[in-house]
């Protein structure tokens, strides 16, 4: 097994009386694609919001390569190497595709790696080519189709050369034709060594994509395993289909 790159210890988030994430302890290994599965309201996005610095956890800590980064704000977390995408695509709508990819290249994290405009240009074109959006670099992003917007957002996250990439429901709102190219580029970058954590509430999308799944329900981890193991786990089935389904599955 590879080294642990990201680790959480008893991570919890309470909103008043609501416990959105409860005692979440898990590890992400370098170079893997980890899926986080759960029905709506399971606490997946809240977990991402903590890991990306948007929410301060109520309890618990998390570590990037043994460095405690629990109370850093969003820009610092990104600077340290955890970069996220959003459930509903968030692009810089007034800018072109190229400019969208340029913004992360101007962050303090990338400023030390990309010395001048030539370096940045090369970096952007490399990523654009790999994500297959190089033809669109000078398009304005507002008019792009949804699937392409997701690709641009993915490319923008990659432009930050993240150590861990968090994808929040990357397939939400996409039709099956649009899902394929995204899966393809995710697998491509994973093959090149990128570590990815993907949130999804449909198990189906995970089957050919992720190596390991953590299933959540009501803020808690209910199962961990390969996608296949998770699909047969009675607790997961119950969380999805409700009580009574357990009997149905075991029979």
């Amino acid at each position: 097994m590879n080294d642990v790159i990201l680790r959480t210890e008893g991570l919890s988030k309470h909103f008043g009386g609501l416990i959105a994430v409860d005692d979440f302890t898990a590890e992400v290994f370098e170079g893997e694609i980890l899926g986080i599965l759960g029905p709506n309201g399971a606490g997946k996005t809240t977990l991402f919001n903590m890991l990306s610095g948007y929410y301060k956890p109520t309890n618990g800590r998390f570590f990037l390569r043994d460095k405690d980064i629990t109370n850093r704000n969003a820009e610092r977390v990104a600077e340290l190497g955890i970069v996220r995408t959003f459930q509903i695509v968030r692009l810089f709508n007034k800018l072109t595709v190229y400019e969208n990819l340029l913004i992360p290249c101007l962050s303090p994290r990338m400023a030390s790696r990309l010395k001048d405009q030539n370096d940045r240009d090369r970096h952007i074109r490399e990523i654009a080519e790999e994500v297959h959006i190089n033809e669109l670099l000078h398009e304005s992003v507002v008019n792009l189709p949804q699937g392409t917007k997701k690709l641009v957002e993915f490319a923008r996250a990659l432009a930050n050369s993240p150590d861990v990439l968090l994808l929040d429901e990357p397939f939400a709102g996409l039709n099956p034709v649009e899902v394929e190219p995204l899966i393809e580029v995710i697998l491509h970058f994973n093959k090149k060594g990128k570590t990815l954590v993907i949130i999804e509430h449909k198990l189906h999308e995970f089957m050919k994509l992720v190596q390991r799944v953590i299933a959540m329900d009501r803020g808690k981890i209910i199962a961990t395993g390969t996608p296949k193991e998770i699909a047969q786990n009675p607790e997961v089935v119950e969380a999805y289909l409700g009580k009574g389904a357990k009997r149905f599955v075991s029979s």
Partner: protein
Amino acid sequence: MRKRILILLLILSVLLLFLLPIIRDDLYLLIILTIALSYAVLAASWDFFSGFTGRENFGISAFVAVGGYLVGLVTSGLGVPPIVSIVLGFVLAGIVGFLIGFPTLKLSGPYFALATLALVVIAQKLVLAFARTTGGEDGLYGLTYLAETFEGSYYYVLIFSLFSIGFLFMLGRSNYGLILKAIHSDEEAARSSGIRTIRYKLTSLSLSAAFAGAVGALLAHFYGYIGPDVVFHINLLVIIMAIVGGMGYVIPAALGGFAISLLTEFIRAFGDFKNLAYTIVLMVVILFLPGGLFSFLFKQSTRKARR
């Protein structure tokens, strides 16, 4: 081709502005042009923060007041040359901008806009409360003039405004300006791209305030006078100028400032209906040219680049 014509047109108009005092011996024209040029800088500096980042600054006249009253209360009495007090006004207003932005720009929501609005009210009250020092409603007279002749003052302001607008324009087109626009589009996404957005908002506000402060000092030296009537009525006017001109490209806003300022002279005859005229211009532009009167200068060129 089109771009070349526009650049040529720009150079010709600047040339015309330089030659005007030689071509025509018209004092009145020089004075209204001088004022129009200072307003162009104000609209450009308002645009540089609010137009770029999308956070509304309702307090530009407070920054103008900082520069103006600095001259009236301190530097003119000390016999400091105008250039020095303009620089001091620039620095001091920049600091005030930083201090007002530091606690409020971190927050989302209307806090920043409210704070800037409050700043103007406070500035206004301070001027009246310390009437013995500030001259109150009457203001302060007898300040050092910008130059010995009106022509001299005109050239002073012309060079100052071309430099200021040019500087803000170049900065707006740089990567720095691009980051400001990204923040306008989606601040959260900018943060998760690793951009320390608060720094950019703060520096852009400080610069915007600094240029407003410099204009305040400039105007005080130009009029030889500073009072509430110079400073506080321009607050909303500058915003209207930037919106009518077009936001997010500096030069359209500056042209808006220049044009509306000249328009003000022509509608002087309307007296109290002046404000109604502004409002009508503003509404017509918002309804029929939502990008502003002059932003076509830049939008065309970006569309061209896309091809």
